């Protein structure tokens, strides 16, 4: 399919989606967690939301 069109060797058409899905999934989850953390910290008083260490 695409791999043939692009002249990729056998195996790459599985390797590339594998890496994309792995880091894509981690990325989406990370964005979700960090955003949620920001939102929550804006709703809490200072001493409850600062992580110093």
């Amino acid at each position, binding site marked *: 399919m695409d791999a043939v069109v692009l002249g990729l060797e056998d195996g790459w058409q599985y*390797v590339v989606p594998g890496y994309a899905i792995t880091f894509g*999934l*981690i990325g989406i989850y990370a964005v979700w967690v960090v955003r949620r953390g920001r939102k929550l*910290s804006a709703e809490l008083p200072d001493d409850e939301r600062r992580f110093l260490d």
Partner: protein
Amino acid sequence: MTRVTTTQSEDAKSAKSKAPRDAFGTASKLTRVFGVAAFVLTSALLVFALVISPPEVIQGESVRLFYIHVPSAIVSLYLAFSITLVGSIIYLRKKSIFWDLMAGAAAEIGVIFCAITLITGMLWGRPTWGVYWKWDPRLTSTAVSFLLYVGYLAVRKLELPPHVRRQRAAILGIISFANLIIVRYSVQWWRSLHQGTTLDPVDTQLDGSMLFSFFLGMLAMIAIGAWLLVHRFRVAWMEERKAEQSLAAAIVERQSEGRS
């Protein structure tokens, strides 16, 4: 990679923003250390795993999936779910909310890495075995473990008073680990009776830059996992604080009922 950019843009934002009110988030020195480590290791992993290391003799290019598949399996099944087990045990002994939240955060990250393990395992299987799924014992037991911990996370979301929910989650966190082991060995036994040796991702022979790529993958996944764990735990911690606050507010509101 994305998660590191997030940390960095976070830093940039906090420098720019005038009101530091919304700048704290869940970041700190600790997460920055993990974040930088994750970023550097992941970049190195991508270079070594995708560019420098050679294709394997039998598996060809698909061996490159191995460098993320096995590390994410280890992070998920061995590290994350073990933290859930330990957190559950400590919670039952000391009723420490810290460890309850830690157990929950670790389970969630374990489930994410478990999903990655399954996806990369199937993508590895297609060129190697010719099919996405070959009822390989490790992959099969990982799939069941994934569902075990999805169930655990569902129990953590039950609408129960906090101390009741924590107690149940802690007990389930311990039983689930026992189940994980039972599932693993029974599936392994089952498959060993029915087929000869097949190519298994873990049996791959590595040397030189391939071995180095694998170690990079290991370290990168651990750094990413640690970074995520700290952030996720802090989110849970703040949710806890927020629940306390809204409870305090709800109590005041409740007390004023019928006075107007």
